[in-house]
């Protein structure tokens, strides 16, 4: 078994500081992030687990002479292979990187939460149980016997009310207490023997205890993997894919798989159920016994009042109003993002304009360095911040509010049926809603899908959702000059394409969509500090990745313009742009630039028009505007999105999607163009 002694690196001042690596583990929505937030504050970073598409939240804290590294694991219900998050979590917990787990438990939902606790116990890593939301229990006049809990689990059990900051730092104090009790007396943490209330029924327990020593025989081989033998025994009995893979790669270990298979058959015949049902049932039986011992209901009144949260819940899942509210919310995302963005963007534009006047007077407008560095570089910077960031930040904010309040599962509930038509289930609506703001976090959000197949389909559908940038083009061109009707026409085509693409992918991709199984937790008031920190973290990510790119592109555009390198490109593209789509020849390069940032297609068009002294309606005919907007909406995800898709799946798939979308866009664009010619010459 691995040693969980705290490590002793030197810190900046050259002093030795003891480091403690802690992982927060628990079900979703138990308040882990609130606790994590309180402990780590601004030191948080979001990253990915190496090589995986699972998010990794970590932060640190210096407290009472120790340096705490804290990782907030994803909220999960079990340690099986249901999702990548479960696999990543269990591998991490038993690795050398974790000294101690804090299992965060929702007091108002002990039964289900303790199931995960049982799973964690099998990993035999030092653990503290943090029972959160004690305030709710108090309100319901329910008492918990903490001493009894400690007696049963033989672990520290502490009450916490995370939203009020109560009990949070005591968790770290307790962690220090445990760690300091190890050394110097013991070199290794000895995990206490499980009390009988935690073990399985006789038949299952016997099989596990027979299998464990067999696995122990190959201890050397498995020391690489750190899993306790008993855990491995249970997983083999459960037919766990990943564990079986590990065992299959070693000859000696392979026999254990056979033994486990036979034991499994015996158990299933005996109990008349499959192994997962047997094991889960026995665990839940144990949990009921524990609850009988530790939960004391002080008042006999049955709480049957319908709370505000319940009323909102009924409204948002109502057969009619639910959908109305959903439409409102999606519209609200746009409205909020645009209002705030336009406001701030306008301010920045003003600043840039004023500064430009000064620069031009000083150096002259046609100075080549002015063009490249000021227009391209600084202009690119202002464009990135004023044109993109001011929209991105309010967007992330409103999405975090929606997420934290608990609304998004309701949307999945309402849309599941329609999503099935497209080969995915209700959860896909969540990244798609995000797609209305920006496709980049939308495609990243597709990691919540359980299988590769669903992830692949979701990613395509999300990238086809018209993002705010696309909306800018549509509203600025068709909306402004042709009216709302044609905007809705374009949207109708866009959504029809999404439905169609989904249907086709559903039929052509092997496999079947998994069914929706999702928890809907109660509505709650979003936590201010969690929202602001998450918004800031995600915006920061965006800034570091997107901003430099945009500035560099701004500079190259200016250089190309100077060198008049754009004309040849336009000529090369003219068979497509002029002949097939019926657009002005200049749009060729603009559409290429649109691959970088979709609103550039309109921005560049506007610049051209003003440099020619024309308004946009003089530059393009109505039908050209429609085709232009349609192609912008559909043709290829913006470059940042393609990169994210590649990260979520692979580059081959990302390029395939890009190619498919270009084809679809050109096809429909051409159809409209020629259809129009055909009908007007009749």
């Amino acid at each position, binding site marked *: 078994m691995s040693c969980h002694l705290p490590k002793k690196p030197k810190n900046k001042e050259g002093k030795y500081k003891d480091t403690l690596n802690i992982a927060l583990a628990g079900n979703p929505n138990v308040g882990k992030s609130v606790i994590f937030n309180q402990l780590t504050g601004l030191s948080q970073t979001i990253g990915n687990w190496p090589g995986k598409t699972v998010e990794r939240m970590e932060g640190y804290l210096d407290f009472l002479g120790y340096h705490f590294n804290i990782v907030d694991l994803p909220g999960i219900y079990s340690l*099986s292979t249901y999702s990548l998050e479960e696999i990543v979590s269990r591998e991490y917990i038993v690795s050398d990187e974790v000294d101690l787990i804090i299992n965060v438990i929702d007091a108002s939902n002990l039964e*289900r939460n303790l*199931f995960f606790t049982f799973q964690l116990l099998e990993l035999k890593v030092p653990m503290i149980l943090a029972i959160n939301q004690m305030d709710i229990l108090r309100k319901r006049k329910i008492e918990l016997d903490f001493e009894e809990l400690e007696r049963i689990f033989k672990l520290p059990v502490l009450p916490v009310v995370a939203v009020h900051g109560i009990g949070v730092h005591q968790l770290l104090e307790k962690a220090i207490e445990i760690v300091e009790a190890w050394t110097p007396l013991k070199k290794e943490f000895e995990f206490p023997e499980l009390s009988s209330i935690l073990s399985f029924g006789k038949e299952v327990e016997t099989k596990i205890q027979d299998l464990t020593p067999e696995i122990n025989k190959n201890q050397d081989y498995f020391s690489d993997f750190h899993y306790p033998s008993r855990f491995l025994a249970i997983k083999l009995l459960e037919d766990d894919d990943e564990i079986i893979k590990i065992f299959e790669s070693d000859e000696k270990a392979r026999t254990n798989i056979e033994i486990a298979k036979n034991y499994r058959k015996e158990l299933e015949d005996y109990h008349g159920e499959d192994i997962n049902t047997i094991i889960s*049932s026995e665990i*839940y039986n144990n949990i009921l016994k524990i609850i009988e011992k530790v939960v004391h209901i002080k008042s006999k009144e049955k709480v049957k009042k319908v709370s505000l949260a319940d009323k909102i819940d009924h409204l948002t899942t109502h057969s009619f109003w639910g959908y109305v509210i959903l439409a409102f919310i999606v519209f609200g995302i746009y409205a909020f993002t645009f209002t705030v963005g336009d406001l701030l963007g306008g301010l920045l534009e003003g600043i840039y304009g004023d500064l430009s006047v000064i620069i031009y007077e000083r150096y002259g407008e046609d100075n080549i360095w002015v063009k490249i560095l000021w227009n391209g570089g600084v202009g690119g910077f202002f464009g990135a911040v004023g044109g993109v960031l001011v929209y991105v930040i309010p967007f992330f904010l409103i999405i975090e509010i929606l997420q934290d309040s608990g609304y998004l599962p309701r949307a999945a509930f309402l849309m*599941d*049926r329609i999503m099935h038509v497209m080969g995915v289930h209700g959860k896909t609506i969540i990244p798609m809603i995000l797609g209305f703001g920006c496709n980049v976090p939308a495609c990243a959000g597709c990691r919540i899908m359980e299988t590769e197949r669903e992830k692949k389909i979701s990613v395509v559908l999300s990238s086809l959702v018209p993002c705010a940038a696309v909306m800018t083009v549509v509203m600025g061109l068709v909306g402004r000059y042709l009216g709302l009707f044609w905007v809705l026409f374009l949207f109708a085509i866009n959504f029809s394409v999404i439905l169609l693409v989904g249907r086709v992918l559903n039929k052509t991709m092997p496999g079947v969509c998994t069914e929706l199984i999702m928890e*809907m937790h109660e509505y709650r008031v979003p936590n201010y500090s969690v929202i602001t920190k998450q918004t800031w973290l995600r915006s920061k990510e965006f800034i570091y990745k997107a901003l430099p790119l945009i500035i560099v592109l701004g500079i190259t555009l200016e250089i190309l313009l100077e060198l008049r390198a754009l004309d040849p490109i336009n000529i090369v593209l003219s068979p497509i742009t002029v002949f097939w789509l019926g657009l002005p020849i200049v749009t060729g390069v603009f559409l290429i630039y649109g691959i970088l940032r979709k609103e550039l297609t309109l921005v560049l068009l506007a610049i051209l028009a003003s440099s020619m002294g024309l308004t946009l309606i003089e530059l393009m005919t109505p039908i050209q505007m429609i085709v232009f907007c349609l192609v912008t909406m559909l043709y290829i995800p913006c470059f940042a999105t393609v990169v994210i898709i590649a990260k979520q799946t692979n580059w081959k798939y990302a390029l395939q999607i890009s190619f498919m979308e270009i084809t679809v866009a050109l096809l429909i664009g051409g159809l409209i163009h020629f259809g129009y010619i055909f009908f007007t010459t009749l």
Partner: protein
Amino acid sequence: MIRSMHKKSHGHKRRGTPLIKCLTECDKEVDVRVLNVDTGFKSKRRLANLGVVPGTTIQKRKEAPFRGPIEIYVKGAQLVIGRGLASKILVECNEACSY
């Protein structure tokens, strides 16, 4: 519990017989007992981990329109289950259920 139902005469509803229905058919806001979960392996394991195993008492809370998912109350939590899965969960209603 009125289990001795055979005494009732013809023409009356037979009360007390446990009714077996799929989750999609039973009434809302009524406690029902899970009898069998006949889904695929992965879903079955997931549902088992979440407490939906034979013998557990659950309650159907909501149904989405257009034959959409079903929301149930199990082990103190609200769970949304796709309709396909729900139709494969057999439950036992008591007399409170309608015929």
